[in-house]
Structures are given as C-alpha cells and as structure tokens.
C-alpha cells in the first residue's frame, strides 16, 4: 500500500533545462531524481548558493541563512542575535544615510553617552541626578545623529520594488533573512543585500532596543509564550539553550551598539551563510550576479562553537506558573540530539502520539476520555544544533485539570513503551511525511527557507528527504525502546500554567 514519494519528483522538475546560461565550473546540478534539481555553488569566500528554478509566476524568493543564533551569544548578553537581526533593517553606509562621515561621528557620540548611562544605571546605587543628566545628553545626541539619517530608505527601496513577505527570524540556532520580489528585480536584490551584509550601520540602535523590549513585553502578555519560555529556561541548567532568544530584560537594558558590532564581525561572514534563490531565475545569472556583488565579502575564521554540555537531567522538574489565563501544560523530555540515531524512533514516537485525529493523543484524550482541548507533541525544541527537547503541549477542558491531563498523557506514553505501535500507524506517518515532501515544493518561500536552513544548520539541503529514508527503517519495537529510554519521569520538565492563587 505504500507509495513512493520520490518517483513523482522526476516529473515535477523534468521540464527544467539550463538552456539560458552556461553554468560556471564548480556549479553542480542535483541529478538524483529523489531530489529536486537544485544547483549548488560556493563562492571563494565560502558563501553557499542553492538555486532552484520554478516558473509558474514571475517571482523569486530569497533566503539568506546564517548559522548564528541565541545559542552563540554570551551569558549576560542574551538577545543579542535577535537584536542584531532587527538592526539589519537599518541601512548601510550609503543606504539610510545622508553622509556617513558626519553620521559616524554623531553615532560615536551617542555610543559614548549610552555606555556611560548604562554603567551608571547598572551601578549598585545609581545616582539619580547623573542618570537624568545622561538621559538628556543621550536624547540630544540622538537628535543630532538623526540629522544625518535618510529615514527608512532601505525599507522604502524594497517597498517600491514590490517586495513580499520581507522579514527575518532569529531562533536559538540560526538567523534568516527572507524576501520575495518580482523576477526582474534579481540584480536589485543582489546589490542592496550585499551592501546590507557587508556594510551595515547600526543607527537608531537604542530605539530599536526599546522596540525589542516591547516585543518581549508582548510575549510576557501571552500565556503560550510564557509557558514555552518557562519550559526552556527550566529544562536546561548549563547549556545556552536555557536562554530565551528574545533575551532577558535585564540583559537587553545593557546591550550596546558596540556589542552588536562585535557580534556582527564575529558571525556575519560569507563562510557562515547559505543563500537560497527559488523561482523564476536563470541559475547561471544568479551565480554571475552573486560573484559580482558578494564576491568581495571577506571570509573570516569562525570561533569554536563548543558550549557547556547539558548534564543528564536525573530529576523530574515541576514548575507552576501563575498567570491570568486558563490552565495549560508543557512537557519537555531531553532528546539525544539530531545527529544521534535514536532521534528517528523518537520522531516516530512523537508522530504516533500526535499525528492527526487517528493519533493517540487526539483519539484517546481529546475524544475518548475527553480531557483535552488540545494535546500534541514535537520531537526537537528549541533547536537542532545541540541536544534539545521532545515537547508535549496540551490544554485541559474544564472541569478537567492540567494534573489529570498530565497523568493521562504520561499513561499514553507509558503504554507506548510496552506495546509497540502497529504497522498501520507507522505506514500512515511515512505516507504523510512523503506527501509533505511533495507539498513543500509548492511554496517558493517555504522551500527556500527549508533548503537554506537544512544546508546551513543540518549540513545538507537534502536533509528532509534523507530523514524520510531513516524514518522508513524504524521498526515498531525501536519506538517502544526509544520511548522507554527518553520519555521518562526523571528526564522531564513539566510546566503547569495555573490561575493566580486568590
């Protein structure tokens, strides 16, 4: 009854031909019909290009993916990766500036006062008069620097070009910059974005820091985000996955433009990036333009990324969060990491529990016992670069409580440890995985993101297809074994959202 995902792919891209331009030496075209015919090319400075032609509409989707996330920040400077991402919309030496030489001096003045202000505010006993004077001086310096800004020119350039979905995202693992443009804007993108990543100027830094603080407050107002943050910060005690990507408020208050510039210099190098280009393009032209605009970007050696390993948990952690909202539940079990062979049966275990209405959580907890409004799971959170968490997220349906729901969830998990799932359950999961692989090809921005992320973070743009192969090899008893090994009480952290005590 199984079907093969991979044969249809042949036809998906069978029409592709590279007649327009001759690919340069070093460019390779994926020929294995298991995969889409992605063109790969690496510039001398290490910037990796992945190009896929799709011609239904005259548009192109771009994803610039850097292997740098909150995990790469330092203790005391949480949130820096994300704040830099915001700053990457503030222009360059020539974009957003009326004249960089004068602006540079004005920005230096702002920075000098900002550092004094932060030092005073962080003192054991801040001098209120001094703080007030420095704040005034800071406001005056910012007003002076404003005179040299061509406001929002970077954003307006893209707006006029007809950008769609321009955005950026920072996770604990990566930072990605995305946009889509009409297809005759390829060279405009190359020109602006190469300048963006080669010559950023972090103007309006301290205002943008306030914007990020508002973003943090928005998250603090949302019970779901609060539960996720509480889960992560309580699950990891040593590894930097413990830090919220948005950053701790106290760290945000002390981050400086100098910190962000150092961070940029360390991690925003071509040898740390993958650019995917998906849509109505000629790969040879993409490569030629990338050489022209990104070729001069200097490579630099990256720091080692070895961080404190998280010790084995060996204890159950139960956290009650009191918040004005109805009850909710998050559970995290330490997983062995995406490069560990056990991850495949664990992915399958997660799917057996929560894949669709025939998944066990829905069938037995939402229907069946009718305890849950929702109950679902996911095999790797918050990141994939280091061992992470298999998570369960659920909400009870009154009059049932989170505690009852937790007990029922653990009972479902325990059952999985002793009774291996049926072959039908496994086949269903594989069928869905394979169908997803086909459907993900329909969206240019979605596919572009997945190619770039898999290449830069997981080490191969073919990663999703290859995981499919691994999942197909998993036997029912492997799943029970993985559940018994990882989904245990002493390997879990459970966060209960509770209504405030009266």
């Amino acid at each position, binding site marked *: 009854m199984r079907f093969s995902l991979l044969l249809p792919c042949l036809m998906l891209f069978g029409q592709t031909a590279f007649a327009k331009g001759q690919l340069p030496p070093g460019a390779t075209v994926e020929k294995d019909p298991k995969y889409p015919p992605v063109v790969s090319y690496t510039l001398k400075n290490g910037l990796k290009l992945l190009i896929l032609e799709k011609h239904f509409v005259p548009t192109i989707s771009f994803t610039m993916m850097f292997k740098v996330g909150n995990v790469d920040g330092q203790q005391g400077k949480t949130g820096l990766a994300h704040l830099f991402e915001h700053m990457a919309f503030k222009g360059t030496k020539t974009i957003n500036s009326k004249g960089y030489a004068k602006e540079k001096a004005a920005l230096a003045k702002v920075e000098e006062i900002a550092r004094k202000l932060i030092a005073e505010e962080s003192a054991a006993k801040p001098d209120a008069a001094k703080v007030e004077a420095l704040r005034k001086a800071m406001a005056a310096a910012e007003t002076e620097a404003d005179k040299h800004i061509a406001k929002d020119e970077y954003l307006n350039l893209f707006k006029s070009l007809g950008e769609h979905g321009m955005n950026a995202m920072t996770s604990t693992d990566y930072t990605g910059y995305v946009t889509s443009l009409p297809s005759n*804007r390829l060279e405009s993108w190359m020109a602006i974005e190469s300048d963006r990543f080669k010559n950023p100027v972090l103007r309006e830094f301290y205002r943008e820091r306030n914007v990020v603080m508002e973003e943090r407050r928005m998250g603090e*107002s949302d019970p779901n985000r609060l539960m996720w943050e509480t889960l992560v910060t309580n699950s990891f005690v040593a590894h930097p996955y413990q830090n919220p990507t948005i950053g701790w408020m106290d760290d945000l208050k002390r981050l400086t433009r100098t910190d962000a510039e150092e961070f940029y210099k360390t991690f925003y190098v071509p040898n740390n990036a993958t650019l995917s280009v998906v849509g109505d393009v000629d790969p040879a032209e993409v490569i030629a333009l990338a050489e022209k605009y990104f070729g001069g970007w200097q490579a630099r050696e990256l720091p080692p990324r070895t961080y404190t390993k998280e010790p084995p948990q060996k204890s159950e952690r139960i956290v009650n969060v009191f918040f004005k909202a109805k009850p909710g539940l998050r559970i995290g079990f330490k997983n062995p990491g995406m490069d560990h062979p056990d991850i495949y049966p664990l992915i399958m275990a997660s799917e057996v529990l929560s894949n*669709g*209405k025939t998944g066990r959580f829905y069938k037995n907890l939402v229907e069946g016992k009718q305890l849950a409004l929702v109950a679902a799971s996911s095999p790797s959170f918050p990141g994939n670069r280091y061992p992470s968490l298999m998570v369960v997220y659920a909400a009870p349906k009154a009059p049932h409580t989170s505690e009852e729901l937790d007990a029922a969830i653990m009972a479902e998990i325990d059952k999985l440890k002793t009774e291996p799932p049926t072959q039908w359950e496994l086949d269903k999961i594989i069928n869905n995985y394979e169908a997803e692989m086909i459907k993900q090809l329909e969206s240019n921005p979605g596919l572009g993101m997945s190619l770039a992320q898999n290449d830069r973070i997981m080490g191969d743009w073919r990663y999703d297809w290859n995981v499919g192969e691994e999942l197909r090899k998993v036997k029912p008893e492997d799943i029970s074994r993985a559940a018994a090994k990882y989904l245990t009480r002493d390997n879990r952290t459970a966060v209960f959202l509770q209504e405030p005590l009266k």
Partner: protein
Amino acid sequence: MTIFSAAAAYALPPNLPKTAPFDFRPPQGERITLENGMIVYLMKDNTMPVVHLTAIIRTGKINDPVEKIGLGELTASLLKDGGTLKYKPEDIDKTLEYLAASVETSMGVEEARADMTVLKKDLDAVLDIYADVLMNPAFAEDKLKIKRDEALEMIRRRFDNPGQAATREALRAFYGAAHPYGWRTEEATIKAITTDDLKAYHANYYKPNNIIVAVAGDFGSKEELLEKLKSKFGTWPKGEVKFPAIPPVEIKEERRVFHIDKDISQAFIVMLQKGIKRHDPVEYALTVTNEILGGGSGLSSRLAAEIRSRRGLAYTTYSYSAKKPDYGYTLGYCGTKPETYSQALTEMIKQFKLIGEQPAPAEEVAMARDSIVNSFVFRFPTPFELISERAVYEYYGYKPDYLDNYVANVAKTDPAAVLDTAKRLYKPENAMIFVIGNSKKFDKPLSEFGPVTELKED
C-alpha cells in the same frame, strides 16, 4: 508594457542597478456552471502530483439565529467529523490520514468553506468522501457533544490572549453586542444548539446552486475532472436558499473609550472608525492611503515609522480597513507598555488626522502605489491560489474583470485622492478606543481621551 506598471519611483542611492517596469497579468483559468447550478473554476497544473479544491458556500457566521450564535460554525465543523450516510467518522479519519489527504470544513464571518487536498493517485477515493461530507452529513450525536464542549472551552479561554481579545471585544463594542457584526458565541447560545438545528442549517445552505468550487492541480483533462464532479455532485438537486435579513449597521460617530483592566506587561490598544461598504469605488484610493498610514507588510508605514522606529514605543502597530456588505471599519492597533501608552495612542490619533489635513508628498504616494502594483503578482503564487482568488471575487460580487483591472485602478490614485479619502473616512475625533491594560501603570488617565466605560473580562 503598460503605463501603470511601475518602475521604482523612489530615488535610488548611487550605484544601484536601474529596475525595469514589471507587468503581470494573472492567467484566467476556466469557469463552468454545472446543470444543478454549481459553479466550477478550474486550472490544470501538472507540476505536482497533487489536486487542491475549495468550495465556497454562501453563508457565514452572520447568518446564525440570534439565540443560537455558533450554529454555523458547529455545523461546518461537524460536516466531516460527524460522519456521513456512507462513511463513519472513524473511517473517514483513517482513510484520509492514511492517504495523507485532507478534507477540512470551516465557517467564516461571511463564507463557509470545504477544502480538499489529495495526492493525484487518490483523487477518486477522497473526492467520494468529500462529496458525501458536503451532501450527506450525519452529525453523530457523540461528536456534537465533543465539539460543543470544545466551543464552550474556547469561550472560557477567550481572554487568554489579550491582543486577540482586544480586537474582538473592540468590534463587539463598535457594532453593538446585538448586531451580527459584533456577535460572539455565548455559553447559552452554544448549549441551545441541537442535532436537528445542524441538519436544518445544512439542508438550507449546502445546495449546489449556493456553491462556487475552485480546483487546481494534476486532475487529468478538464473533461475528466468535470466528469468526476458530475458523477459525485450531479444528482444533488438545486433548491431555494433562505437567507435571514441582517439589520442595518448603526455606528455612533462620537468618541468613546472602553477599558478592561488587566495586569499584563503591555497595554493593547484598538481604535475603530466607520469604514466602507464592499463595492465602494473609493477602495483603490483607500488601499493606497492605508498603505501609507499603517499598511503593508513592512515597517515603512507612518504608524510603524513614528510609533515603532522613531520612538521605540511598540513592536506591533498597524492599520487596515475591512469591507463588509454594510459599513465596514477602519482599525488602528498598537501594543505598548502601559507606562507610555498615552504617547503611542496620541501618536496614532495624530497620524490618522495628519493624513487628512496635509497632502502626502507625491513621492510617498508613488511609493505606496508601486508597492501595491509591483507586489500584486504575489496574490497568485500557485495555480490553486490564482483560481481560488477568481472564485472568491465572484463570490463577493465583484465584476469578472476586477482582478484584471485592479492594478490600473490602484495606479490612478494621486496625492489629491489620498487626501480626499483620508478626509472622508478618517475621523479620529469620532473614533472608538478600546484598551486592555493595567491602568495603575498608565502615564495618563484614559479619561483624557474621552468618556470611559469600564468593562470586565466576561
């Protein structure tokens, strides 16, 4: 090439390549009416072995009986989940999930939907389920209980996310809790709904002559697809559909302030003003005006520039105008810390006023126009999204060439049109303001913005 397909009007910094104009005409697709009145839009696309289908059924939450608000939504959610004459609920789930296909039914404010996604090889099997779901739902009693309990739980949780709650409650206060545009489900209206109500609702609205279908994908030839649709839906008889009368909208055009006190990190502010009816020709100029004021996907609108980028007061701030059969609304939104909420709100009011007082610079208007014109192509990223758009515009009563003339109509908007539109439609002095936030931390009392009505989370 056409005069209104725009080159980037913004002055480029030195050394950037010149951009050529961009001209895009959306493909047409085909439109066929079956004998029983079902309208079918289709577009063949064999790049992926997948078929997508959506049906738009003419009804919506606004058609619920007042004592049974939530009836439409429960009906839609049980079409599949409650089983059919031919298929038991668990058989439907097992078959669809094994085949990695999906059949999803839902109810919007002004439209009901039934969507299907299926791999080409399973089209016949899944279309058979889909058709039975639409035509012959059984509404199993035990499944109704689960869905009803779920709806009640959602009511209990409706203030959990304060940003969403602010928008919903603001619209409720704006149109009045008694008008369908301001309705929300209540415990009593959900509990009043019976299986017979679901059956009667289905029998009235789910008729072939009340449905527009859009299909795209690898379905073989047009003739093959139509044969399949006829064999599944051909015997479904036409019939009369009764629609309830929706009372006319009454909007108090005077400043009012509503507040729900809640100790959370941000204050959520929603500002509402009277908007336009759906086919008002001002819509093109309004789209450009809103793009300048608070629209667009980017951060370059005036609200984003002033409240967010220049003053660091918010992460989220935007505006939009919603069209409805009767008067729609214009909404301004901002999430900001309570200690500075009045600065953000004052700035928002100021920006709504300013754009109706001073003509926007020609360059700013050109940029907003270019943004809409040049990004028009992104409404049609796939054949299915293209053909669905065509079906949706017919459903909402637009002329068949609406999408084809859209760009030309937007391109006519000049600074004078923006000024006139803002003058006509933006009256912030009459705006209703709704705030959820911790008043103990407010930098100014809300009463400085108008007479305040205190509300509770209910």
